[in-house]
């Protein structure tokens, strides 16, 4: 029983991490129809700079941890905003080129990170409490999982409130449905593009710092490794659906962990098989829209 609880908690914690990445991917695709392959490097840079900030504050205190999360979020926001303005916007409506430029940016950024921080993982430390466990139904759950769950829940709640109760949120919801009609109402939808990239970058940057504490290290490939699963989550949840991404994040990660433990480490294979099943049986994903 306690083993199952631990596996499930590990899955939910990992799912929370997937959601921190997938939420931005989903919003960006929903509004802009851009598959952003550079999203992982927003996460990686957030993790590196967040780690640098924490190092300068002593790394093991709570203040350093909180500051590193803030710094990670800000770095992710800035990197994503500059990416949208400098690389995505000039290629407006040229979706293939937009995808290619994000792929190129991802490769270039990873190489740059390796040049600056080296190609070996940098092992990190944080508040001692994060490395400890809490007993739940007989299982010893690492505390960092709870932090991830709280962060993902806070992000989801913030995004729901933002999308539902602000004018920009309303524009984004309308734009996901029919971008051309939003412009035909006199709204400059490109501002929303930048904002969506900034939100996605912020979540990825925070996710980077938390991912580093989840794995115990930062490396130049940290984000791109998570990005693959975030894409799978986004497709299974339904491209453009935030709620779909949230549900799929947990389902995919729990399935992955169950398979890893009970089916001899086949988690990654099972996740890809689940993606294939969803694409065959329900191509629009769990909560995706039917094509117009």
């Amino acid at each position, binding site marked *: 029983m306690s083993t199952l609880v631990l596996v499930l908690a590990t899955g939910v914690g990992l799912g929370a991490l997937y959601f921190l990445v997938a939420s931005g991917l989903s919003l960006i695709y929903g509004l802009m129809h851009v598959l952003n392959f550079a999203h992982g490097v927003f996460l990686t840079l957030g993790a590196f700079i967040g780690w640098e900030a924490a190092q300068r504050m002593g790394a093991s205190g709570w203040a350093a941890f909180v500051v590193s999360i803030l710094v990670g979020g800000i770095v992710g926001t800035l990197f994503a905003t500059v990416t949208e303005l400098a690389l995505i916007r000039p290629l407006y409506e040229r979706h293939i080129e937009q995808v290619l430029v994000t792929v190129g940016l991802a490769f270039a950024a990873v190489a740059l990170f390796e040049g600056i921080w080296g190609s070996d993982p940098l092992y990190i430390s944080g508040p001692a409490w994060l490395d400890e466990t809490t007993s739940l139904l007989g299982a010893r759950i690492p505390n960092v999982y709870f932090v991830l769950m709280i962060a993902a829940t806070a992000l989801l709640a913030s995004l729901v409130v933002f999308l539902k109760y602000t*004018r920009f949120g*309303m*524009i984004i*919801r*309308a734009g996901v*449905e*029919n971008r*051309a*009609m*939003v*412009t*035909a*109402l*006199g*709204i*400059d*939808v490109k501002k929303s593009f930048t904002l969506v990239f900034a939100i996605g970058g912020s979540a990825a940057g925070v996710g980077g710092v938390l991912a580093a504490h989840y794995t115990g290290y930062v490396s130049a490939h940290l984000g791109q490794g998570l990005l693959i699963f975030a894409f799978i989550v986004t497709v299974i949840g339904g491209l453009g659906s935030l709620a779909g991404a949230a549900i799929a994040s947990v389902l995919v990660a729990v399935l992955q962990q169950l398979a890893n433990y009970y089916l001899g480490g086949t988690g990654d294979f099972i996740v890809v098989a689940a993606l294939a099943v969803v694409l065959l049986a329900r191509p629009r994903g769990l909560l995706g829209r039917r094509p117009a």
Partner: protein
Amino acid sequence: MSEPILTVDGMSASIGGQQVVESVTFEVPSTGITAVLGRNGVGKTSTLRGILGLIKRQGRVTLAGDRIDHEPTHKIVRRGIGYVPEDREVFASLTVAENFALAERQAAPRREFVAELFPDLVARSKQMAGTLSGGQQQMVSVARALLNDNRLLLVDEPTKGLAPRIVGEVADALEEASHTVPMLLVEQNLEVVRRLATDAIVIDSGRVVHRGDAKELLDDAALTKRLLGVHGEAPAGEAHA
């Protein structure tokens, strides 16, 4: 005759590399409703979308003397062009009130005017637009364009697929609105055209092939038959060119 509110001079438009409008030239008077007529697929909708910059276009387009053909869609709309698209295109997952809020561009939107024209929508303001009937969705689409003090409305097939009673209600609203703003109206229901339009242009194969008084055109059965393939006297709901 007063200056035209809109001039379209040699405008061509294409979708996916295929030319759908070929060097159309016409003017829209600053009062009344100008109907854009033609058989299915001749480029009427594309003409409206080209004016708004929703599809690639070339040529000269001016609004009240100012060139707008190099501007993006949202700036053209902010100059004072309202748009009622074909097939309504309401935001289905947004409420009626949210659809209206998105459309409001001015500090004091004409909510009372819209509420008088469409009282049913006021009662349904919290309802998701996607759950409304086709007629109600059309009213939302028209209402969005009427919330602002526009200088011109582009209205694309507002009665398409509607029940005869609803066709009458939509036509009533457009007629009322036309007292305050000129319109360029794409419409296949010739009874509605006869009732509303003062002027008409006919497009065929992407080109303007006729301009003139709308009622004179519809009264000329032979000309109507030749240009539109139907008789102008056909009853409402059956007169689809």
